[in-house]
């Protein structure tokens, strides 16, 4: 029978077949390596381009000036302050609401149609395009509630609605990973359900929740489209004094400068991108540090 002949391993033809299969194996492996390499090369290309174009624009004046019509005088301080105020508003709203609803869904919610509805909407909101949140902000906060245009308050509210589902999902995972024995022990010594959750589960889940929150905040910091929708694209030369003052934010400032005809703004735009990327890197670094320091395997 031919199949018996084919399984003779010392045969020359068999050796060739094995060699061919091993070559295919190496090729496949090489493709994989190339895919990773290509992606990383693109990332390096992007970062190096920005660094080369923008490093000359970074200076103390650039960090302390605000937007100006002359490229030479333009700086990022106003936009940076606007970004920080916006993120503060986002954090103040999204974090408590996100944590509370994560606690409710994970620890208290009965399984019924209502909680299913809540769950479905949270999962969907996490995947809704950010520009839709901008339209929501425009229709509700500006046209219906008449909040001040282009202010960090409105920007923060809009971004909070966008970040809240991210925090809820991260929070639920963190709460899920707290072992049931902790709850049983606390219940066993007479704690009420609410005391179990707020005295024991929440503190243990908090590092995980914080990690998710910081990552969500970093995403909100880099978000542009929804803020364009609510009018944060005006030329504003003075840094905002409060959350109701008109203000710009860093990503929008980048967008506005990228539209300038004056070639001198190329350097400014790239420098502003470097500043933005440094902030994102710091926030993500903090999240990774928190995760490594407090992550517990039960």
């Amino acid at each position: 029978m031919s199949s018996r002949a084919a399984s003779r391993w010392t045969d020359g033809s068999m050796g060739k077949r094995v060699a061919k299969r091993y070559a295919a194996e190496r090729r496949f492996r090489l493709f994989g390596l190339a895919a990773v390499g290509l992606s990383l090369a693109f990332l390096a290309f992007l970062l190096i381009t920005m660094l080369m174009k923008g490093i000359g624009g970074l200076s103390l004046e650039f960090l302390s000036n605000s937007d100006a019509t002359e490229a030479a005088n333009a700086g990022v301080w106003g936009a940076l302050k606007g970004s920080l105020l916006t993120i503060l508003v986002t954090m103040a709203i999204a974090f408590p609401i996100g944590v509370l609803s994560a606690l409710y869904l994970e620890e208290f919610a009965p399984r019924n149609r209502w909680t299913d509805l809540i769950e479905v909407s949270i999962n969907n909101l996490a995947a809704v395009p950010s520009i839709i949140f901008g339209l929501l902000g425009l229709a509700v906060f500006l046209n219906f509630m008449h909040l001040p245009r282009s202010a960090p308050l409105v920007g923060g509210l809009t971004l909070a609605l966008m970040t809240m589902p991210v925090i809820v999902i991260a929070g639920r995972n963190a709460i899920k990973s707290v072992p049931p024995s902790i709850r049983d022990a606390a219940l066993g010594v007479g704690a009420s359900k609410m005391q179990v959750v707020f005295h024991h589960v929440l503190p243990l889940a908090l590092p995980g929740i914080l990690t998710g929150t910081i990552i969500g905040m970093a995403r909100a910091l880099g978000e542009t489209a929804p803020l364009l929708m609510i009018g944060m694209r005006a030329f504003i030369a003075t840094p905002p004094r409060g959350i109701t003052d008109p203000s710009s934010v860093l990503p929008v400032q980048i967008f506005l400068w990228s539209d300038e005809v004056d070639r001198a703004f190329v350097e400014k735009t790239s420098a502003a991108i470097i500043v933005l990327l440094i902030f994102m890197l710091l926030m993500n670094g903090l999240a990774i540090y928190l995760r490594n320091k407090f992550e517990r395997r039960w």
Partner: protein
Amino acid sequence: MTLQLALVAILVIAATAGLFARKRATGLRGGGIRLNSLPNYHALFVGLWTALPALLFLAIWAPVQSGLVEQAVLASPAGQQLPDFQMVRDTILSEARDIATGRIAAGFNPESNAIAPVYSAAYGKYSMVGSALAVLIALGSALLAMRLVKVDFRARSGVERLMMGLLVGASLIAILTTLGIVLSLLFESLRFFKQVSPTEFLFGTSWSPQTAIRADQAGSSGAFGSVPLFWGTAFIGAIIAMIVAIPLGLMSAIFLTQYAPARARAWLKPILEILAGVPTVVYGYFAALTVAPLVRDFGLAIGIESASSESALAAGLVMGIMIIPFVSSMADDSIAAVPQAMRDGSLALGATKSETIKKVVLPAALPGVVGGVLLAVSRAIGETMIVVMAAGLAANMTANPFASVTTVTTQIVQLLTGDQEFDSAKTLAAFALGLALFVITLILNLIALRVVRKYREAYE
């Protein structure tokens, strides 16, 4: 300003009431009797019941007050001279509001300077009334709550009921947001469809949304056929971006999970994730400044005359790169979910590693990968900044990747950020486009989530 003061006052009253309640509860315990609840719970109970009703009142009062102020201003002699036209009147009123609250020094319209003092007076009067009422409510509820502090009063269950309400309320925000999105998009879209028929919007093939100011001007009607926009969106987001993202993302996932040593994986994966963390405005700038000229020169070099510097290819390429980590991590998850026994079985029969991956692991992981790709498509078509900065504005229906096409999100930004009057079909069209985008991404997400979930159950 007084409303903010009232807010602070309420919080101070609540804190002091809480402290008093605590002292009283501790005093009750002095006689050696056991309290039903700890003094801290009495304090929380009194504090919460003091603050919440007053805060609720303030939340309701704020919008009521602005309505009342507006009425008072319009009823005043200066207000009655304002033009009847709704839009002009609203502009003047909002300017007067800005002057009265000190946000700007003087208005653009002379009328707004005239009514600013009236506005200021009405505002002062009503916010005084509101603050006084809020503080009275806080004091009243503090007194009522304080009377409940007794030995056998179950303060803890009271506090926990309140907390429970807070928890439920917080989770309802998600539903409210969804509802808000659907309602606001629907409402504005309906107004749009009163002016433009839905069939023209859905099936029309010509898009030029500029409506003229006078009716007799050329091209006064504007065309709102959205088919070219959806074609452009699909071309960039679902075709070009996916041609880049699927092979690179999938192969990266395979390499990282199956071949890379654990230490290399621990380094490479987070670095790859940075691609997903770079803000989209940075990608957009990079696409417009660096990639687009390269693509155009390449197009000219291979003999395509019409190569545009706002080509679909440049935007799609960069978008594909942005999506790589997303596809990769979805593929990673579904590959990891394939049971080890299937892999071992294939290897034991003598298949090489790559044969196992191609013939066993990938087919088994396919539903998860497909779900991940659908989610990636939904993310790509909703992506805004890359296409706003790198894709064009001309609504072309072309399959030439070097030509310029426009997308739904680009047009939304374009429609809402130019000089605009709020009720025109042009502005409302943005909401109709938003509604269409929302529905499409929703359907994609629902299908994807269902596919992924069903597949997970199969192996558990």
